[in-house]
């Protein structure tokens, strides 16, 4: 019988012995029936729209169409290839992704290491770290938009008072600092979340390993490289891929800061403004498919890196 949590044999053993019995078939029937609502939702809300998007990308459909929609084959994709705004948006998105993931990961790991040690108020720290993650991204963006205000914002005020800045800057409107300001918001909001995920991974590492290393005379740095990092690898990889995919899909904070300003668009902003703003459903669908493929490339890269790491 079971001696604790069993994963492999959830169904009572007595009934499993004979395959293909009426009971077994009934059980399978029931399982699929229970799955039906979930599968229906996935098919309806994800698969069907995805297929429709691919189909629409081969048409010239407009939301407020005056003429009937017609098939245009690869024309949308040809136009997309020459679309400099789309290319800019891809580049902007990649810049954002690299900067935010690097900072969030670096800072997050540092914070996780600090909070991992036993100290009074550790529980409070963990709760505090969860707070930026829990508030709506749009609300966080509004908070920072006010803090980064060029005349009355506290960031400029503190910076000038502490002599870090020589003068107030228009963080959001100035194109040279626009990306930095958006990254700052995302980093503020997400670093604690990354830190929490890494902290969970850290807490699984047994303390005995560190003790043994200390007895053998290993320095703190050696302990970090030889014990912490390798054992943290699964958590690091999972956190990296989730953060990377989230960053590639970024929309909220860019929209609140810049609206539809064309010099700082991400892929998602460009897609949304093409479909909903301009009503170009057909062309916008081609953009959507392109975005989907770009993200799929990243997933493939991640899965291969993961597989290579396991060998």
């Amino acid at each position, binding site marked *: 019988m079971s001696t604790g949590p069993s994963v492999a044999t959830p169904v009572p053993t007595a009934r499993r012995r004979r395959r293909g019995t009426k009971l077994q078939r009934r*059980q*399978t029937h029931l*399982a699929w029936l229970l799955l039906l609502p979930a599968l229906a939702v996935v098919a309806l809300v994800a698969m069907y729209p995805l297929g429709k998007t691919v189909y629409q990308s081969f048409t010239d459909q407009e939301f407020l169409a005056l003429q009937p929609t017609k098939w245009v084959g690869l024309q949308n994709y040809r136009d997309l290839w020459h679309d400099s705004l789309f290319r800019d948006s891809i580049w902007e998105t990649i810049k954002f992704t690299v900067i935010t993931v690097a900072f969030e990961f670096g800072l997050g790991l540092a914070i996780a290491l600090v909070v991992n040690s036993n*100290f009074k108020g550790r529980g409070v720290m963990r709760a505090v770290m969860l707070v930026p993650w829990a*508030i709506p991204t749009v609300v966080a963006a509004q908070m920072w938009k006010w803090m980064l205000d060029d005349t009355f914002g506290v960031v400029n005020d503190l910076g000038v008072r502490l002599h870090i800045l020589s003068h107030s800057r228009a963080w959001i409107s100035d194109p040279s600092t626009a990306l930095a300001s958006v990254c700052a918001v995302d980093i503020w909001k997400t670093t604690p979340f990354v830190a929490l*995920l890494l902290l969970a991974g850290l807490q699984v590492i047994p303390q005995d390993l560190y003790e043994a290393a200390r007895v053998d005379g290993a320095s703190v740095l050696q302990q970090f490289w030889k014990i912490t990092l390798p054992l943290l690898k699964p958590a690091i990889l999972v956190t990296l891929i989730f953060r990377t995919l989230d960053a590639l899909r970024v929309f909220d904070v860019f929209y609140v800061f810049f609206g539809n300003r064309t010099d700082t668009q991400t892929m998602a902003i460009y897609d949304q403004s093409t479909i909903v703003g301009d009503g170009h459903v057909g062309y916008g669908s081609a953009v*959507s*498919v392109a975005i989907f493929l770009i993200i799929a490339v990243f997933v493939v890269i991640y899965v291969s890196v993961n597989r290579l790491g396991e060998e």
Partner: protein
Amino acid sequence: MSTAAEATRPAARPISRSRRMRKSPFGRIVLRIPFYFLIAVIFVYALFPFYWVVRSSFTPEVNLFQTPVHYFPQHPTLANYRGALSESFFTDALINSAIVAGGVTLLSLAIGASAAFALGRFKFHGRSFVLYVMLSMTIFPQIAILGALYTTISRLHLYDKLGALIFSYLIFTLPFTVWVLTSFMRALPGDLEEAAYVDGATPIQVFYKVLLPLIAPGLVTTGLLAFISAWNEYLYALSFIQSPNHYTVPLAITSFVSKTGSAFAVPWGQIMAATVIITLPLILAVLILQKRIIAGLTAGAVKG
């Protein structure tokens, strides 16, 4: 003369001076200082923006648009709160978001628990395939189907209705819910279930009376996470909702415009007051339920 105890005691290693210092009471305090400084820095980094929001919400509009900036409200006022709450689209938005998030959460839990029962307690061909489909759905980019959803929702006459959001939010709440609840279901031992079957219970009864109560923590966790992600969603709300009285909270927070009609004076005081109203319950909920939230997040991420 060496006793047996002395002979078995490991040879004492010479302790370095720095180690002696660190172990002394004085050393312990001194070394703690940079550590607690770091903790304080993290604390301030996470929470200062909230302090600033609260401070701004209690500052009269007149003083907000003034330099130099004051770090403590000199003439605290409730005018901003009154202003924010008097905007009907804001109070409507609180209700709308509650309806949408609540609806999506209930649907996700009901559908998700049923699917988790099948995936976690039954063996059948295609089980792994379905599980991996669910997992891959969690990284599905919502922007990719915006166009198709847009036209589908218009055709279903759901445009500008809350139903459109309840429908489309399932795309990111359901897969995660199924995935996490399945891992909870799988972890349950089979004894209670077997006993119930032996007593003649039908699978449905087993589901309701035995399994659901056992995975209650999982239900709370995934319900919470689903609620939070539905509450915070912006892209679909922006694209599918038009009338101000159907706005959800993220739409409302970006819709405060100056009453005087001036294009330049953004009512930051009211926006900050609205922000406090929105975030305070969220912060309290997170502080109270943090263990559950962290458990759910790590179950989905680290384990997967």
